[in-house]
């Protein structure tokens, strides 16, 4: 037998077990790339525009109030003639800050409570989970309004309000993960090796739940932004002179009825687009760290 002609480079074979096919993968890649570009653009705009552009977002020009989008003002102007593009970027900056700070705080609190409940077990677990149930039984927007109302309007009360109403789901996720890991033989081995409860939690349990907690944190950023906008829209969040997406939409409410659509549309888009982009990235990440997928890789 001769080893002559190499195997013809035919069209890629379609095998039975590859159920998704290239098309599904290419749309997924497109989704991930688009989301990544949009998230990067958002972060860059928020970080770079204010220091580089050096324009005053509060500059009032009553002669040019409520102008529709044009070359001079791509997003138009608001009811006192401020440039909406600049206001939107500044508003996004504040909303994103609130979103990230609230999501981080909520995740830290939720992870701490969930890990403590799961690792300690017994009455500590029952007591902590009853606290979680109690918090969950109150509508969280209502509770958030109550917390915000206790403070002077500002960024940090909104962060606290959103964080204190959103750590519950993270606590539940982390507790469930910790409970399932706690009975693994490698935890038995650590106990037998003299590890304290603290060491088992910090060295073995928390690193294992961190991907889930981080995913919950990322998904919470847009949710927290929406909460901030909701609170500001209700007039309870940030003071009206501070541009945030919520305050922008709230002040533009009146002009919408008069037919001026741009002061509400653009802040709304600034809220929706980053939300979808972050959700797209987080979705791809969730597929990656899917426990079933991971266990297939490990075993």
């Amino acid at each position: 037998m001769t080893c002559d002609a190499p195997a013809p480079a035919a069209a890629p074979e379609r095998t039975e077990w590859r159920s998704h096919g290239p098309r599904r993968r290419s749309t997924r890649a497109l989704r991930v790339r688009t989301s990544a570009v949009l998230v990067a653009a958002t972060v860059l705009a928020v970080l770079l525009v204010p220091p580089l552009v050096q324009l005053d977002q509060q500059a009032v020009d009553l002669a040019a109030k409520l102008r529709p989008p044009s070359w001079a003002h791509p997003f138009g102007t608001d009811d006192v003639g401020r440039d909406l593009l600049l206001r939107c970027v500044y508003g996004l900056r504040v909303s994103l800050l609130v979103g990230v700070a609230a999501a981080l705080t909520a995740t830290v609190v939720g992870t701490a409570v969930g890990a403590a409940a799961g690792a300690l077990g017994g009455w500590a677990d029952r007591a902590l989970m009853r606290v979680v149930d109690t918090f969950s039984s109150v509508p969280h927007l209502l509770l958030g309004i109550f917390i915000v109302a206790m403070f002077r309007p500002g960024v940090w009360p909104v962060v606290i309000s959103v964080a204190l109403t959103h750590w519950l789901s993270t606590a539940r996720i982390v507790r469930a993960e910790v409970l399932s890991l706690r009975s693994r033989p490698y935890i038995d081995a650590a106990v037998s090796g003299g590890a304290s409860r603290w060491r088992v939690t910090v060295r073995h349990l928390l690193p294992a739940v961190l991907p889930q907690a981080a995913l919950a944190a990322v998904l919470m950023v847009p949710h927290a932004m929406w909460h901030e906008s909701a609170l500001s829209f209700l007039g309870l969040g940030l003071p009206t002179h501070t541009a945030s997406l919520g305050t922008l939409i709230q002040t533009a409410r009146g002009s919408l009825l008069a037919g001026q659509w741009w002061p509400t549309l653009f802040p709304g888009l600034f809220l929706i687009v980053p939300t979808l982009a972050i959700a797209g990235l987080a979705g791809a990440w969730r597929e990656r760290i899917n426990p079933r997928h991971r266990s297939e890789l490990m075993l």
Partner: protein
Amino acid sequence: MLELRSITAGYARNAPVVRDVSLTVASGESVGLLGPSGCGKSTLARVAALLHRPDSGTLLLDGEPVRRWRHRAPREKRTAFGVVFQQARLSADPRLALTDLIAEPLRATGRGAEVPGRIAELAPTVGLTPDLLTRRPHEVSDGQLQRACLARALALRPRLLVCDEMTAMLDASTAAALVAAVEDYRAATGAALLAVGHDRALLGRWCDRTVQWDSLA
């Protein structure tokens, strides 16, 4: 050294896995515990290693009754036992390299300074080469991982080794190497052994005496 008196243990109330079992392991003795799958051998091994609280019965360690299990047990009592489990894959933290896996008991008991010396001592006795030590569990075979798990169990120089079907998932040569490593350790330190399994030929050759599960109750 270790005495289990009428132990009843299980994972749900009213459904004990182990009923009224008694077993004694004298100092320096090696005992093989034989029984069919699912009879409760592993649960008894976990009770013996202070990892599972029995529902009733008494456990005497050096003549003293043990009243606390797992984290509540005093550290020197817990670390008197070295435990090797059946499934190496599940008993190794997937995030730790084999060196860290073996060093974990030393670090957990505040003896981190001894790590390099002890690793250099343990790795050759269980047959791990230096290039394997830097790998993580998913990068080594089951047999290599079980060698690391045995090294971890030996790290704190336990007085009693509990081998829960240590060789059940391994090929004959790896099984022989691991049994030889355990026997070398016992010859050097005089540690006792409780080997659990259902391989009558292996336990018969390995242990001073073997007991049938049915004869314990």
